């Protein structure tokens, strides 16, 4: 009896210590994080490098292109280690959904694989008080053409043969047109299975833009996110077409470079340069540097050059944009938006891209992007 009471007392006191201890610790914890976040903000601002958090805080919602989702994730991870008071939430639900969310005022910025259309700019004027939506090119990337032909390495194709293959006009791998481009390769007698995306996709849009620009006589379709040519096989998503290429002998398809791995070889594209070009991040950046800014005002939408003459410029590239208001951004999210976009356009931010399989923007373009971001209001 006595013993029990003693034990109970002991347990009670232990419990009390635990509770107060926990309270004290959590109190300390919250103090600490508050201190470090403001402290790091100060120190980085004074150092003038890395991330400038400014007075950014709160939650930043964004939505859009799934093609740049991995890049955004990498940026957010870095950014939030410095600016702990900002929570960035990027849903990669697709360019179309992102632009819709933006024009309805649900998100601070949207990601998109293609620049705003005129009617979307009109719609954006309703949410941008006194301004309009603008495109900021931020992420580039090569669209690789992956293939699965046993015994054939370093396959070279040009725009014309690609167009004919994807339009089901060239149906066998031992076709003369392919043989002419690959005099040394042993091309098998194998049916070509051209895979395309079954979902609507910015990758399809950009790939067909290339075919339209570089092989206008052989690719007569209008273009757009939905695949238009008849015939061939299709699969859902970049991972779906990559899977299709991997498992099907004779398959060929287009996909973002990061999907073309584990047994998928990529086509070297014959351009107007002397040597066929490999699909790499560096070669994509070289091609994007020939792009022209065609946006008016602060809009920086690009017109890519799909027939580059420079050596080592990979022509099938994709540029994804961040879409924000040039004026009239919401007051509560403007500091965070500006701070995050400044970071991703900075040298550190762009350097992170090639690690994630994307191509950084060329110097000339990113400089314009930086100055445009600094003027956002």
């Amino acid at each position, binding site marked *: 009896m006595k013993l029990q009471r003693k034990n109970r007392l002991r347990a009670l006191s232990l419990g009390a210590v635990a509770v107060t201890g926990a309270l004290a610790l959590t109190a300390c914890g919250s103090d600490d994080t508050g201190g470090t976040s403001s402290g790091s903000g100060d120190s980085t601002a004074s150092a003038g490098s890395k991330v400038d958090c400014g007075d950014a805080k709160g939650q930043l919602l964004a939505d859009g292109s*799934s093609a740049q989702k991995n890049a955004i994730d990498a940026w957010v991870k870095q950014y939030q280690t410095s600016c702990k008071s900002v929570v960035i939430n990027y849903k990669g*639900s*697709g*360019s*179309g*959904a992102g632009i*819709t969310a933006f024009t309805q005022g649900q998100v601070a910025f949207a990601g998109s694989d293609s620049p705003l259309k005129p009617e979307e700019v009109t719609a954006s004027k309703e949410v941008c008080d006194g301004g309009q939506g603008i495109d900021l090119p931020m992420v580039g990337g090569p669209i690789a053409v992956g293939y699965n032909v046993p015994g054939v390495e370093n396959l070279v194709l040009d725009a014309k043969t690609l167009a004919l293959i994807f339009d089901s006009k060239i149906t066998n791998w031992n076709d003369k047109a392919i043989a002419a481009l690959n005099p040394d390769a042993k091309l098998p007698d194998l*049916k070509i*299975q051209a*895979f395309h995306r*079954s*979902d*609507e*996709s*910015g990758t399809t849009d950009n790939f067909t833009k290339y075919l339209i620009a570089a092989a206008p006589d052989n690719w007569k379709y*209008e273009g*757009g*996110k*939905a*695949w*238009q040519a*008849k*015939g*061939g*096989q*299709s*699969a*859902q998503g970049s991972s*779906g077409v990559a*899977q*299709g290429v991997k*498992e*099907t002998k004779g*398959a060929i398809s287009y996909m973002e470079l990061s999907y073309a791995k584990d047994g998928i070889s990529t086509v070297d594209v014959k351009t107007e340069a002397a040597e066929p070009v490999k699909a790499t991040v560096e070669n994509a950046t070289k091609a994007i540097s020939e792009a022209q800014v065609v946006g008016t005002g602060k809009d920086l939408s690009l017109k890519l050059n799909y027939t580059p003459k420079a050596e080592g410029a990979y022509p099938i590239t994709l540029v994804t944009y961040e879409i924000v208001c040039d004026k009239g951004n919401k007051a509560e999210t403007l500091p965070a938006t500006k701070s995050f976009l400044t970071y991703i356009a900075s040298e550190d931010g762009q350097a992170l891209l090639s690690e994630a399989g994307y191509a950084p923007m060329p110097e000339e373009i990113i400089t314009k992007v930086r100055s445009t971001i600094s003027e956002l209001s």
Partner: protein
Amino acid sequence: MDISTKKDTVPPPTPPSSDAAGQAAAPGATRIGDRIFLGLSRGSGIFLLALMAAIAVFLSYRAALAISKDEANFFTTFEWNPTANPPVFGIAVLAFGTIVSSVIAMAIAVPVAVGIALFITHYAPRKLGGLIAYVVDLLAAVPSIVYGLWGALVLVPHLGGLYGWLNDYLGWTGVFEWQGGAPRSMLTVGILLAIMILPIITNVSREVFRQVPRMHEEAALALGATRWEVIRMAVLPFGRSGVISASMLGLGRALGETMAVAMVLSSSFEINLSLLDPGGGTFAQNIASKFSEATEIGRDALIASGLVLFVITLLVNGAARLIIARRKEFSGANA
């Protein structure tokens, strides 16, 4: 006599009173519990009607918006391009693909499901039957995206052999002609859907076969029927309407299956006569794959296609009810 008439006259006073109580209970429900239950069930019924009406109104409104902008014939166009200027889209391929894939699924699943149900109820030892029933139930618990993954990663790579065999022996029909593409065709989708709808058909059929009156079976056995004859003459006729209802439930799932089809089918806006060549599409698959990148009109166009699926499902269910109503006399409910 007198006494007997007296005895006869004594009871009458009680029946009227009980009758009156019965009459009062039937329509009005005198007890509080009855009244609450009546209110709840009536409310649920009306809620369901309102819900279906709301869905129908929403679909029709958005569909009307899209179809008014469609430059092509909505029912006969083999194209889906609502972002084009002017927008062009039609459901011909989707309707064809939805119906064909569901029919294949039914053709495979119904005989297998009835077979499993008969085996469980009439052939298998009790323990084995219970185990099989349990495993079939588990099939229903697998999410459809897992079926999609399994279909794309396991089923598709292994179907080449079957396709080659079909092409060799039945290729001359045209329906089983194979050009050697990846086996991501309507037949593959049908096989996958058949597996997915198996549990629902099996379960309902099993319960129906269990309900067959013991007397029927014993009477048939007494007449010298073999076990197969018992099943043919007593069990199957009794269970027919139940099996049809079960199949319709399964068909409902097959018509509306989304992710598994989207992951397995090599879809395109073409109709292939051959079931083995890639191409075609289904309503649900098309909505799932096109929705995320669709513009506003694109979304309305997808909703319009959803309305067509809604109507097809209504028609199928109506037809099933007609068939079941016609076979009521065989159902054994009055036996």
